[in-house]
């Protein structure tokens, strides 16, 4: 595969899906950053709370996979009428994890919002990416270029499996870095040592966790390959609405239930979905983005099977793109 062609194809996908892949995530991250910076300013000057409210302690241990809940909000005695800035500074100064917790809180807010957006974007993208060009006849233009359908389909898969996670990684990292520097400026001017803040962020994993999330996201998407592959297949197969093709396995589930109930025959569709569900359940730490997700050798087989099934559907989609005459 020619790398220049692949890069151009990725650019084409980004041009076509600029709003979904670039503009919307960027706006969300900017809003989160603006909110975080505003909040930092508010808290360091006027807030009744403390930075400790954002406590988000990171424990990278397989034994402790639960997110740390914030500690109870410190009740500030209003009668003393002390400047609130003092309380915040005190909290950060007294708790080495507080600054890191604040950065991670902002980054996770950004991350969760990006996940919500991208789950919609990637769902619709995978269902329409091999359908829209046939529907509006753009395919005649794309087919006039020396680009194979294999390249075309694999680039679209790359958008989903790697480009979207990379966009999330970049935005998460940028949010982390900007929040970190904003904190340094606000808190540094308040007398807290820079090395203390830097140590809090580095030891707490602020700069590492976006990469851990990226890794977990890639793993999750690979486990979802049967679903993604089938969505691509539905997109390449459908003549009118890919969604109906995509939802067609539900008919098989219904048929399985009816056969079971009426004739006592198990055709195995529900069992198959149950097996897949268990495989997903066994790796759920990656799906819910626990930083403590660790890849075990027991996950290799399910992962390989999921990738294999997904690849089979993708192969069918490529075959249909090459061999169906309808343009």
């Amino acid at each position, binding site marked *: 595969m020619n790398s220049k062609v692949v890069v*151009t194809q990725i650019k084409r996908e980004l*041009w076509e899906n600029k709003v979904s892949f670039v503009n919307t995530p960027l706006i969300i991250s900017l809003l989160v950053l603006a909110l975080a910076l505003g909040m930092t300013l508010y808290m360091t000057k006027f807030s009744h709370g403390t930075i400790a409210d954002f406590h988000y302690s990171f424990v990278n241990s397989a034994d402790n996979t639960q997110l740390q809940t914030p500690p109870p909000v410190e009740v500030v005695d209003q009668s003393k009428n002390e400047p609130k800035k003092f309380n915040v500074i005190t909290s950060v100064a007294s708790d080495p994890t507080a600054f890191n917790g604040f950065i991670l809180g902002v980054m996770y807010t950004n991350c969760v919002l990006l996940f919500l957006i991208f789950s919609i974007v990637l769902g619709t993208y995978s269902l329409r990416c091999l359908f829209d060009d046939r529907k*509006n006849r753009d395919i005649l*233009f794309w*087919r*006039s270029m*020396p*680009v194979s359908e294999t390249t075309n389909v694999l680039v679209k898969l790359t958008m989903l499996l790697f480009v979207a996670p990379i966009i999330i990684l970049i935005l998460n990292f940028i949010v982390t870095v900007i929040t970190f520097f904003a904190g340094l400026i606000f808190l540094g001017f308040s007398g807290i040592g820079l090395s203390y803040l830097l140590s809090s962020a580095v030891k707490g994993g602020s700069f590492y966790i976006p990469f851990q999330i990226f890794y977990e996201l890639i793993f999750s998407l690979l486990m979802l390959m049967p679903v993604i592959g089938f969505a691509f297949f539905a997109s390449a197969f459908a003549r009118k609405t890919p969604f109906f093709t995509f939802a067609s396995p539900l008919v098989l589930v219904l048929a399985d239930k009816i056969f079971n109930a009426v004739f006592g025959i198990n055709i195995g569709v529900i069992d198959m979905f149950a097996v897949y569900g268990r495989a997903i359940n066994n790796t759920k730490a990656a799906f819910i983005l626990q930083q403590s997700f660790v890849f075990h050798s027991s996950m290799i087989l399910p992962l390989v099977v999921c990738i294999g099934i997904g690849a089979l559907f993708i192969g069918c989609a490529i075959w249909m793109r090459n061999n169906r*005459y309808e343009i």
Partner: protein
Amino acid sequence: MEAIIDAQGISKSYGKKIALDNVSLKIPAGRIVGLIGPNGAGKTTLLKGILGLASVEGRLQVLGLNPFTDRVKLLENVSFIADTAILPHWIKVSEALDYVAGVHSKFSYEKAMEFLAKTNIALDSKVKTLSKGMVTQLHLALIMAIDSKLLVLDEPTLGLDIIYRKQFYEALLNDYYDSQKTILITTHQVEEIEGLLTDLIFINDGKILLEVAMDEIPNIFTELQVDLSTKEAALALKPMHVRTTLGGFSMVFENASVDELGTLGKVTTPSVADLFVAKMQPSKYV
């Protein structure tokens, strides 16, 4: 000379409908070929077979390659406009240029800009904001900037005004065409390309009705203008086609003696349009 397109007995059916029926043709390099036929004649199916967009039965080679199995390799030397105004509506003009430059090694950005400079198309415009004619202009600029060995144009000037149509055909001849390039054009506006063509192919009902070099047409076909007094004598010579004109009749003959026809009326060479009608609607006298 090796044929650029070599088709031997190719056929294509859609259910019971036969789109191509045992078609054979050879197109050598350096020719400008007009593929003319009525709607549903099989033109587009033939073009799609040549471009590898549809599989066909029989032996079909384009630039020595099987277009269906070697489509990507073939398209490095073949460019085409398979239909008008089919550029993606979301793409910007600058993005379209960048895209073709990125995927086609024989695309000249400068040449495309030269073509675009003759239009009112702005680089930052999106295709959806362009008129149908402008989209066609952009598409033609993109395709003509590719230094390919075979250019296939399916109704290239549909939707264009007459000024740009003239400009396009001038550019096609002056800026694009050379002895190494072959151009295959389908159009309904046969009068416009008549002076451009080196070869002519008529197709109807999936069959090739005529495949002839333009300079051979005067030797094979003759048009005769007669009045009522010589009509019967002319009909006795079995014209391929007869039509009524103002104050007389016009007849088209194939392989008839020009000297003999000259004694009956005014003899000329039929235009491509007249020849097309004559071939599509043969008279009962043949």
